[in-house]
């Protein structure tokens, strides 16, 4: 280790992302000012849009659900030393396959149809991600490039399915609805917005990932390969096996995000179903410092930004502001020494005053 900072590791893991978010909101307010709008009103509208009423609140939770899972997918990958930038495609493929299976389970009771549909989404996500894992292990092809290519292939495959074989009705290309028994039940309803147990499934998966990473030997091997592949191989851990496994688990999480979107929200496959939620997983895992519990809170943050941004649009501020905020956060987490330096500078100043 190089010289220690004044922050111990755990504390800085919490402070850096929070500082990054604050700095990002400040910079974004300059962007808002530049188009002649008041950032305070913008953020107020955003907050109101995300938490202003029970309906908004449920909406935020609904938006947060898939984000927890894509955040876990990317975060799990980071811990294993792979940069899974393909959660978007894995989520789409998971949703597509879950729809196909969910459509054909009409004859089964929910306690069979629901888990089966979920598992099929996870399976397809895992397979899609494993392609990149396999190629990395076998040929060394970098997963950033292969998963991006797989995203596009998944995108066009989904478009093809809803325009061709699965197409139903007119207007927006879409698939038929899944069987009623494969839909997630509603536990809370406020006007048109329905809350399903999906959020609990996402939180349970966060706990499962935590246990897998921290308490099992599989998790230990995956982390070891991520931390230092050559040392791990010297210690008898197979790099190839663990890279493929890590990608598969990561993809399964993203696939589950897609399956839950189908089962709880849209009840069918649509071309625009993923809408950047897979990419949001990258910012979420970085804000959550790749820790499953941190990822839950980071997903809630991005989820509320997403819901709130719709309200902001009524105030005349394009919803793209959320992407700008996210990009600044990611940038600051990538170069976390910037934030550390700002913090250190403040600390020094304060120490100076005390003397």
């Amino acid at each position, binding site marked *: 280790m190089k010289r220690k900072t004044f922050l111990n590791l755990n504390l800085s893991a919490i402070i850096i992302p929070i500082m990054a978010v604050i700095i990002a909101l400040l910079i974004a307010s300059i962007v808002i000012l530049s188009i002649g709008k008041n950032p305070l009103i913008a953020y107020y509208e955003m907050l109101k849009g995300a938490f202003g009423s029970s309906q908004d609140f449920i909406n935020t939770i609904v938006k947060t659900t898939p984000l927890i899972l894509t955040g876990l997918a990317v975060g799990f990958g980071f811990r294993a030393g792979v940069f899974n930038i393909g959660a978007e495609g894995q989520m789409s493929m998971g949703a597509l396959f879950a729809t196909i299976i969910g459509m054909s389970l009409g004859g089964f009771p929910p306690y069979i149809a629901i888990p089966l549909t979920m598992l099929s989404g996870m399976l397809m996500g895992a397979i899609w991600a494993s392609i990149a894992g396999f190629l990395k292990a076998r*040929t060394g092809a970098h997963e950033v*490039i292969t998963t991006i290519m797989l995203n596009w292939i998944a995108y066009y495959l989904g478009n093809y399915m809803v325009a061709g074989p699965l197409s139903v009705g007119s207007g927006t290309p879409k698939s038929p609805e899944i069987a009623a028994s494969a839909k997630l039940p509603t536990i809370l309803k406020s006007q048109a917005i329905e809350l399903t147990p999906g959020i609990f499934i996402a939180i349970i998966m966060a706990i499962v990932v935590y246990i897998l990473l921290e308490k099992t030997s599989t998790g230990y091997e995956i982390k070891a390969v991520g931390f230092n592949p050559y040392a791990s191989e010297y210690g008898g851990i197979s790099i190839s096996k663990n890279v493929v496994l890590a990608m598969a688990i990561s993809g399964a999480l993203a696939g589950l995000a897609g399956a839950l979107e189908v089962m709880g929200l849209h009840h069918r496959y649509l071309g625009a179903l993923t809408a950047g939620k897979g990419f949001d997983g990258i910012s979420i895992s970085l804000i959550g410092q790749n820790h499953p519990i941190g990822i839950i809170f980071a997903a809630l943050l991005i989820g509320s930004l997403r819901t709130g941004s719709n309200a902001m649009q009524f105030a005349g501020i*394009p919803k793209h502001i959320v992407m700008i905020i996210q*990009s600044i956060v*990611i940038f600051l987490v990538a170069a976390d*020494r910037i934030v550390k330096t700002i913090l250190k500078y403040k600390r020094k100043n304060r120490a100076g005053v005390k003397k």
Partner: protein
Amino acid sequence: MTWIISILNIFANPLFYKITLTAATPFIFAALGGVFSEITGVVNIALEGIMLVGAFVSIVFTYLTGSPWIGVLMAILSGLGMAWLHAWASIRWYGNQIVSGTALILLAQGLTGFLMEPIFGKPGQTDFIGRIKDLNIPFVKKIPFIGEILGELNPLVFIAIALVIFSWWFLYKTAIGLRMRAVGENPEAADTLGINVYKIRYFGVLMSGILASLGGAFLSVGELGQFKELMTGGRGFIALAAMILGNWNPIGAFWACLLFGAAEAMNNQLQSSPMLQISASTKPLFNMLPFIVTIVVVSGFIGKTRAPAADGVPYIKD
């Protein structure tokens, strides 16, 4: 059988080669950018985002001034700005280069989308704003077959090809090129010899910004004459694949770009082939073609090419 005949027909048509060249042009600019950055040891996946900003800025200034060339000039400045951010994070602050690149792609998508309404009054895409006129070379045009390919092309296509040769000369025949390669292979040794590792890396990344933004400008003011949200559509990543396939060498990357350009041209020509009568619903399947070709090629060749040894590793001077 109709398939084989249609594909042969496409190969026999000069239009296929013309589309290959124009489709390859944005790849060539961006892949050269990738080479300049990575040869000094800085991975730059932000190419996609730099291209998008370049495409946007060039249209904005064409809209404001009426001159697409001023648009291109401003695109270059925007590319320098984006690349400087990447260099600042990854060289000055030893940041994770892939994560910083991802941030810049998202920033590009967010900013261009955000500014659409305030500037053009509507989201999604602009109207036709204006494009650089094609270069008409009468004496080339008279040559059969070749004339139909090269006789009337956008000047940026020729600039891209000229830059391939220039880049090769610059990186392999000049002192500064040698220093760049030394820094990418072994920054400690280069440092010992008195080379300023940080300066060289800044230079490489800034050059990649200029080049990638030209690729973006080609897409908007070179080809379409308008801007569409997310119009780069993964081309920055295909360019990275071309750079890898071309073994981090400008000439190699050029051939790889032509290959990916050919995949796009083939997709384009198959979809509009009168013999095949591709229905609208199966067209998405054809759009996968360039991406599948990229995956196959990257996985097939990767063991045979070699990245600069210090590629992606921040240099921390003790």
